[in-house]
């Protein structure tokens, strides 16, 4: 339930259809259905969520070795490009237009050619589509953490296009599309089954975590992992990224109310206390286990807490948010150690932070959800609602995890067989930035810039140069 600010359960009993049929497109601002406050709120939140992707690029780039920092950031940057186009052309439509059997939308909104149509609580379709676009981008970019240092750039680009259509779009439909919101019929998970996932614990978090696992298995381990040291080369960049992610996550979570009101404010509150609790829990456990509270631990804890509160933030009170934050701070940290036991090189721990954190958040939502917080939600086990909700939450985790893993495994295999997914061993040894992008992130010594600069033939010479 993503827009229920007031009473009732609007996806079951829509007061009236929210779609305003516009036979002859007219300026949307004249539409009496439009709410300028909610529109401003959603547009602002969309911009906040956009910033999460460059933030993620910093978060990830700091954790890899210096010679692959640019490639790490480029995987996020090209995702902004690829997913931005796919989404506007047909991805948004497949996720959010009228549903076919609750499984997938259609092409009704393809190309976003009627952006002034008003949906939900008075927001133009274009604002809603842009808000959801930023979710699609950050979710795809998250996967890059699993394939650090070793994925060919164009193969990654093709993969992420396939993945967005094959994995993200259906999951977003199942969990984010509600009857009568942007299409007459919505998806099956949240809309029909009644799973509580406020901002994307399934479609974003569990999805990216399990997709990352499949991707890490297809690409294989980095050379030398786990024996060779692969320590983070720039932790201040990682901390900057964690800060930008937290900042952007306010748009992600509060914005998912899709209306400026009490539910959005509650989500904002939860998005503050959960990562706060996660940081403390993580650092205390880390000190006990490893001897020191580390900055990488703090940055990871922020993300773990934010991931955990994502499905819950619009349904739980302060107490629930604190418990979720504490749980994620402890459980995600222990989950990080799993990859060394099981032997998969999920390089930057997407599985442990997003997969495990998302699952913890979804399940705990089944315990801590309260209709006192959001009447459109449900009461969890601890608030007198019985065990039914946690069952639904568990189904959501299994469905999202299973679908994401299987389809991603297939798509990544396809890219591997047809294009080749992994760089040559010597490229990996010498550094992917140099080989894939002909750049290096840092200028360490004047010796590296001696040599000659040659203007490439594709660049026209200036008049001065051609005269001499």
């Amino acid at each position, binding site marked *: 339930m993503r827009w229920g600010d007031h009473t009732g359960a609007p996806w079951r009993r829509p007061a009236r259809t929210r779609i305003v049929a516009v036979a002859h497109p007219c300026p949307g601002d004249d539409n009496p259905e439009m709410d300028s406050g909610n529109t401003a709120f959603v547009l602002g939140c969309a911009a906040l969520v956009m910033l999460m992707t460059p933030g993620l690029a910093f978060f990830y780039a700091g954790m890899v070795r210096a010679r692959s920092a640019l490639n790490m950031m480029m995987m996020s940057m090209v995702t902004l490009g690829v997913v931005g186009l796919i989404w506007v052309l047909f991805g948004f439509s497949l996720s959010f237009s009228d549903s076919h059997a609750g499984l997938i939308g259609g092409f009704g909104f393809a190309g976003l050619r009627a952006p002034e149509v008003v949906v939900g609580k008075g927001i133009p379709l274009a604002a809603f589509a842009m808000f959801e676009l930023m979710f699609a981008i950050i979710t795809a970019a998250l996967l890059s953490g699993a394939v650090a240092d070793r994925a060919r750039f164009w193969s990654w680009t093709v993969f992420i296009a396939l993945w967005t259509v094959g994995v993200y779009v259906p999951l977003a439909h199942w969990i984010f599309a509600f009857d009568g919101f942007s299409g007459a019929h919505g998806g099956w998970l949240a809309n029909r089954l009644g799973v509580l996932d406020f901002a994307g614990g399934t479609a974003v978090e569990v999805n990216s975590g399990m997709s990352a696992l499949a991707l890490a298995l297809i690409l294989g381990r980095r050379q030398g992992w*786990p024996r060779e*040291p692969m*320590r*983070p080369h720039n932790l201040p960049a990682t901390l900057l990224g964690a800060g930008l992610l937290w900042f952007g996550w306010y748009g992600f979570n509060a914005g998912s109310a899709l209306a400026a009101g009490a539910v959005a404010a509650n989500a904002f509150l939860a998005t503050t206390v959960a990562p706060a609790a996660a940081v403390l829990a993580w650092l205390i456990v*880390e000190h006990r*286990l*490893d*001897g*020191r509270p*580390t900055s*990488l*631990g703090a940055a*990871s804890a922020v993300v773990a807490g934010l991931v955990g509160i994502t499905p819950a933030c619009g349904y739980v009170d302060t107490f629930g948010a604190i418990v979720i934050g504490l749980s994620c701070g402890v459980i995600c*940290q222990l989950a*990080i*150690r799993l990859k*060394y036991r099981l032997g998969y090189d999920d390089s930057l*721990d997407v599985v442990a932070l997003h997969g495990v954190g998302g699952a913890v958040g979804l399940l705990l939502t089944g315990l801590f959800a309260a209709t006192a917080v959001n009447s459109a939600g449900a009461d969890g086990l601890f608030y007198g609602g019985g065990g039914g909700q946690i069952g639904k939450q568990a189904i959501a985790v299994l469905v999202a995890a299973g679908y994401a893993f299987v389809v991603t495994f297939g798509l990544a295999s396809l890219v591997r067989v047809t294009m080749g997914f992994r760089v040559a061993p010597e490229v990996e040894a010498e550094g992917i930035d140099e080989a894939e992008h002909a750049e290096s992130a840092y200028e360490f010594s004047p010796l590296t810039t001696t040599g000659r600069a040659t203007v490439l033939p594709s660049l026209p010479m200036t008049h001065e140069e051609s005269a001499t």
Partner: protein
Amino acid sequence: MMLVTAIVKPFTLGDIKAALEHLGVFGMTVSEVQGHGRQKGHTEVYRGVEYAVDFVPKVRVDIVVDEAQVNKTIDALIEAARTGKIGDGKIWVTPVETVVRVRTGERGLDAL
């Protein structure tokens, strides 16, 4: 002439420079190096993984001096670089055949 090479803790460089200037030694070459002696390295922990950092950052100071000044130079270096804890570094001395000042072509002690 002798080349005095000192590998020391980086933060002692300021004191070393002052001590050498006090002695009348004005030329020196300083480089950032990494290594270990008996101190070995240290360990760092990232997300629960312990990395042994075998080589720790040190500063290397190279000074060419007249043979008569070698002992005083070494004493000054020890005075400035010693903390009494493990990892204070090493000093060694090697003979130098000649020194040439590039600008003037002067050789030997005149070039110092």
